[in-house]
């Protein structure tokens, strides 16, 4: 009797497992009308997702072979890495170009060189400052979607109230600080009411301040130079804030910063007059700033006048993860998306500028952001910079954020902070670099043969 029960028990478990396999078999990656399903993950949500969804729908309507299934996925970098490691990546994934060095050297991506050749996609089709971010170790890993540059955004009314010309933004760091002194106001208890500028507001580019001081944080090849002259100058500049405004008032000011995407944003509320920001600000200003908000966009001031026009160019891009089930079909969609008509519609929908070398005259006419040409000109400039292609960028950036936080609180000297950071990050950088050197020959050979 007991053995019969045991047998029935075992049979039940076996049938559950077989049911699981059957479910897997029932999902042949095809639609009911026989089209092959291409899975595409991207990080966008809200209006940005809508803009891509419209294009995907249009592509799907035109197709009898491919069906693109578009999914909005949060924390996409982590999820793609884990899905690829688990052998179930999507066919296409939207990531940031800054992630490409890590993804590529880890072997998480399919090189696109052969596809680019097949579809006639050439570097000259794109802005050089965009294209170079898609190439890691001389191989192409992604194709761009929506780029951005960062620039000075200023509140013209606060300029006017401080007796400054609202149409003339500062060009140098010295000018920026002179404006800062004029605009900043304290209340009778020593609290900051309005601040001209604060590097931690919003402080999204902690690792890149050296650009506006004429340098970088690595030698472009194999050495980290966080304690370079330029980065030292940048950190000295940041450390001057608590000296001039007091660490405690600055702390209080930062505590009231509020959520970025809300009417509490200190720039929209007129609590800070000048911020380093990007083209997405137009959308947020429309949604959260007062109706009569009067703002301008210009290059961010540089230490030396000859570096005025420097900006950080970033781009979203689409990659084909390694192990994708249908890379050829995924590339067919990607090529369709790269056509000027589609790409410009996407950039318009997401209020960005076009990454293509040629832009149709209609694009600027249709674009709602009156300042869009400035962002584009910054990306066209020879002074356009991109994030260092280092394998420890995430850690470096977070460490720089902590250093800057310490400096603004007046808790550490820039020299000491940078010395510690350089020692810590150089050890991590060297370790990753050595690991890469060990496998680089095999990887480069493998990529060239694909």
């Amino acid at each position, binding site marked *: 009797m007991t053995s019969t029960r045991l047998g029935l028990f075992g049979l039940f478990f076996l049938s559950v497992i077989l049911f699981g396999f059957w479910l897997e078999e029932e999902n042949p990656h095809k639609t009911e009308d026989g089209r092959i399903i291409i899975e595409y993950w991207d990080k966008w949500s809200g209006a940005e997702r809508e803009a891509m969804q419209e294009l995907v729908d249009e592509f799907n309507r035109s197709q009898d072979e491919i069906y693109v299934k578009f999914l909005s996925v949060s924390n996409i970098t982590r999820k793609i890495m*884990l899905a690829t490691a688990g052998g179930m990546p999507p066919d296409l994934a939207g990531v940031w170009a800054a992630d490409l060095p890590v993804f590529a050297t*880890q*072997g998480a991506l399919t090189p696109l060189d052969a596809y680019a050749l097949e579809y006639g996609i050439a570097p000259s089709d794109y802005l050089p400052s965009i294209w170079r971010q898609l190439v890691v170790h001389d191989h192409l890993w992604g194709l761009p979607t929506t780029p951005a540059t960062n620039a000075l955004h200023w509140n013209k009314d606060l300029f006017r109230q401080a007796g400054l010309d609202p149409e003339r933004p500062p060009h140098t760091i010295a000018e920026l600080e002179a404006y800062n002194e004029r605009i900043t106001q304290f209340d009778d208890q020593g609290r900051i009411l309005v601040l001209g500028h604060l590097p931690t507001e919003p402080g999204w580019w902690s690792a890149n301040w050296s650009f506006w001081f004429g340098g970088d944080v690595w030698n472009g090849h194999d050495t980290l130079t966080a304690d370079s002259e330029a980065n030292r100058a940048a950190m000295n500049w940041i450390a001057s804030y608590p000296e001039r405004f007091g660490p405690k008032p600055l702390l*209080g000011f930062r*505590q009231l910063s509020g959520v970025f995407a809300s009417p509490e944003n200190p720039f929209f509320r007129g609590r800070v007059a000048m911020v380093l920001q990007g083209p997405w600000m137009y959308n947020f200003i429309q949604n959260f700033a007062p109706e009569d908000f009067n703002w301008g966009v210009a290059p961010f001031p540089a230490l030396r006048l000859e570096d005025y026009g420097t900006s950080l160019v970033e781009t979203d891009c689409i990659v084909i993860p390694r192990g994708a089930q249908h890379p050829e079909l995924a590339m067919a969609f990607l090529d369709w998306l790269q056509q000027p008509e589609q790409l410009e519609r996407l950039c318009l929908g997401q209020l960005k500028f076009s990454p293509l070398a040629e832009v149709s005259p209609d694009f600027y006419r249709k674009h709602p952001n009156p300042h869009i040409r400035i962002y584009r000109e910054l990306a066209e400039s020879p002074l356009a910079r991109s994030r260092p292609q280092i394998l420890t960028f995430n850690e470096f950036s*977070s460490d720089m954020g902590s250093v800057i936080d310490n400096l603004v609180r007046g808790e550490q000297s820039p020299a000491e902070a940078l010395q510690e950071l350089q020692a*810590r990050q150089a050890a991590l950088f060297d370790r990753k670099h050595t*690991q890469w050197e060990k496998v680089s020959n095999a990887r480069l050979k493998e990529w060239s043969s694909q």
Partner: protein
Amino acid sequence: MTKYEKRRLRLGLLFISPWIAGFILLSLYPLLSSAYFSLTDYSVLSKPVFTGLDNYHMLMEDKLFWQSIWNTVFFAALSVPINLITAIFLAVLLNFNLPGKKVFRTLYFLPSLVPMVCLGVLWQWMLNGQIGLINQMLSPFCEAVNAVLGTAISPPNWLADPAYAKLGLVLASMWGVGNATVIFLAGLQDVPRSLYEAAELDGCNFWQKTRHVTLPIISPVIYFNGIMGLIGSFQVFAVPYVMTNGGEGPGRSLLFTATYIFNKGFQAWSMGYACAIALILFLIILTLTLLATYASERHVYYAGK
């Protein structure tokens, strides 16, 4: 072992097999594999390369690792006793036979139902140095002290000042004290009335009854809540992660060991290194649990023993 006993054993094993399978697959295997990965250079996508004790050598020299251990120990040392005492205190209050006691019990338990992420966001605002509720409550007190003593004290900038950030988190952790309170309450209701009556006949006052009757009888519950609190506080992650918007707090004062494991494993993709930290955290928790068990052996009373 007789045939009957063997059959009973087989049946017993069969019935606990789902748990055994779960334990092996979800606890033992991850534990053993992370012990192995901690001896390798592993980045999830590429094959792990055996590097011996390299990760552990690096950890010993890693200032941030030691800071994360210090932050975690500091937080645990403060939050575990404070939460235990608060939970016992609330349980004793809720044990009084008052009208509407069921409503009070529900009210005190309700906050522990708030999800961790909501709790993080909520306390981010509660602890805001300028407009937070906590400082709004402290301000009149500070003003009164200043008026009397002529000082110039002001409420702290909880989450922006390294000296107060962890204290702020301890305060936030008290929000979840309802769970422990309910367990203590169940323990309190198990204390035989006869013992109190005997104590009263001997002339004991409230404090003496609490010290010599209540606390010894509920000592297994105190031990259980203490151990669970210890483990929970050593694994603290979600609330500070949300409170700092994924950061490490001012001056890295909210960089806890679990946060550091997450950062190393899923942001830097140094999974081998993260496994080494996780294993050290596991050993610390294991040692402290064993120590607590050993130290409390003579002080915990089990009626069934």
